[in-house]
């Protein structure tokens, strides 16, 4: 794992990607620090991270886009397969390298509240919890986008798909808020979610029948519920969405309510998507 980690990390910082991304993230964090703390005189550094979350929308797709897509395109994946490495070494090496790029601006910005604390009353516990959640959120998004990079051969495509998915994740609840026919809307979302689950099952197992069975069972359940008691769909789907939309739970956390479920959710996403990446890489040799 060490060899892959070093190679990837080196890759970020021999080019300009690592520097530019770090610079942009630090610039935005600096900008929000100036607006909140200097212009408005708020001693609430956690808002800085709450706003900087938007930067993750493109930061994460850019750090993950070449992780696997580029290997496939340059045919260097053959080298990785023939080297005496476990698939988990490859995936984790790459994942941790991407996390390091994310950790760099987080670490630098951690100094800011310390520098500012003589000018106001900062709630350090909340600030650093927010920072930790910010990093965890980034880690979860990185796992998702790494998985997407694994599925594509073109890094630009990987970046765009990742960006769209993160964007949806961020704004889905806002969109749903303005859609009037909510039962229909939630039904559609549930159908899409079932399609995604089916697709993921197929990608991970390469077992088309299993994926079909899973999708059909879920769809049948959905249809049954829709006929018997349609309002349940809105309630259940809405409830689940509130719990699993990665950005929404972060904003709740910033307001001072850290729920264990938030941390569990982020860690689960990390584990699930790195596990699925390892499986897909393993299955790819069967393709």
């Amino acid at each position, binding site marked *: 794992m060490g*060899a892959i980690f070093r190679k990837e990390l080196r890759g970020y910082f021999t*080019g300009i990607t690592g520097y530019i991304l770090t610079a942009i993230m630090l610039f935005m964090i600096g900008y929000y620090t100036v607006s909140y703390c200097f212009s408005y005189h708020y001693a609430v550094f956690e808002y800085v991270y709450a706003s900087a979350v938007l930067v993750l929308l493109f930061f994460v797709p850019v750090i993950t886009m070449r992780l696997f897509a580029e290997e496939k395109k340059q*045919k*260097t994946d*053959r080298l990785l397969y*023939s080297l*005496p490495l*476990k698939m988990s070494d490859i995936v984790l090496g790459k994942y941790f390298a991407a996390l390091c790029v994310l950790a760099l601006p987080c670490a630098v910005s951690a100094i800011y509240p310390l520098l500012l604390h003589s000018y106001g009353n900062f709630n350090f516990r909340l600030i650093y919890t927010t920072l930790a959640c910010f990093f965890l959120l980034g880690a979860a998004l990185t796992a998702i986008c790494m998985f997407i990079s694994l599925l594509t051969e073109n890094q630009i495509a990987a970046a765009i798909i990742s960006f769209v998915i993160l964007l949806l994740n961020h704004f889905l609840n806002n969109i749903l808020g303005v859609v009037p026919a909510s039962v229909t809307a939630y039904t559609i979302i549930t159908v899409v979610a079932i399609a995604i689950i089916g697709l993921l099952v197929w990608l991970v197992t390469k077992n088309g029948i299993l994926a079909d069975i899973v999708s059909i069972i879920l769809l049948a359940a959905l249809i049954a519920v829709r006929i018997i008691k349609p309002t349940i769909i809105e309630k259940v789907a809405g409830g689940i969405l509130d719990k699993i939309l990665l950005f929404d739970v972060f904003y709740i956390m910033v307001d001072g309510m850290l729920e264990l479920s938030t941390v569990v959710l982020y860690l689960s996403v990390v584990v699930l998507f790195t596990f699925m990446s390892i499986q897909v890489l393993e299955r790819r040799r069967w393709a």
Partner: protein
Amino acid sequence: MIEVKNLTRKYGEHTAVDSISFNIEDGRIYGFLGPNGAGKTTTMNIITGCLSATDGQVIINGHDIFDEPVKAKKCIGYLPEIPPLYTDMTVLEYLRFVGRAKGLKRAQISASIPDVVAKTGLSDVTNKLIKTLSKGYQQRVGIAQAILGDPQIVILDEPTVGLDPKQIVEIRSLIKELGQKHTVILSSHILSEVSEICDEIIIISAGKIVASDSAENLMGRFNSHVIIEITVKGDPDRAAEALAGLDEVLEIEIDDSLTGGMSKLFVKADSDIRAELADILVQNGIAYISMNVERANLEDIFLKLTDNGGEAFTAEEDAAYAGTEENEEEEGDE
């Protein structure tokens, strides 16, 4: 040593490799020969763990590539068809990465890199970015990567494709050198290359092994007779009559389309009997201009074997051949 047993690989309905079995003995150079799309690359990818098999077994020094991939892969250095290079690294950085990924210790890496670099003739370019190197040098970096850490088995997929003639000669002599220390398997669709470099040739066609033997044996097996081409001046029929008296002569064909009173005779015989033929011609006062032996070369054998889609052998020949294979391998070891 590699044992391949009943290896099969299907892509959907298409069978790329069809239940092939062979053994690779230590310390020899093997050539996989076959037309494009015969299954050479697929076989190599499976042996090196880049691809899974639909069925069958690959055992490398006692380790099954599917059950103990890491241990099996440690015995192998692989150069795929397209050298897998990180082009924005320098040669040195790239080799260091491969060394670490192969699990070599720091001291081992710093000791073996100069050795590998010298062997592959990369000493002048170690600090250059790989993307600035020519195709020939990139191929060398690919080979350097494969032999780093001294794996017992080196597998090279079409190592000379896309190189200019000078580079081809250099790479070939490098491979021959590697053969002194490593077991080398290379694939190629160029016959002369394989017959020049390899001790053993495995001919693959349409996913099946159609022949596997040393170059001489292959030629011997397919040449039960020779054809001697004689150019004579004068009456070809008289010459043919005289030659037909010899017991060894099986058949004579005459080609009298030549000008200047000359004709060609094609004499089919069991062995090279040029001396006897010359004696008879001289005794009969027939002037002959030249006399050559035509042997079916590897090219003919190759075409014959691969044209029929792997059916050049009858079942009997296959069985007889399977019996001789082991004996020959033992001879090879002696």
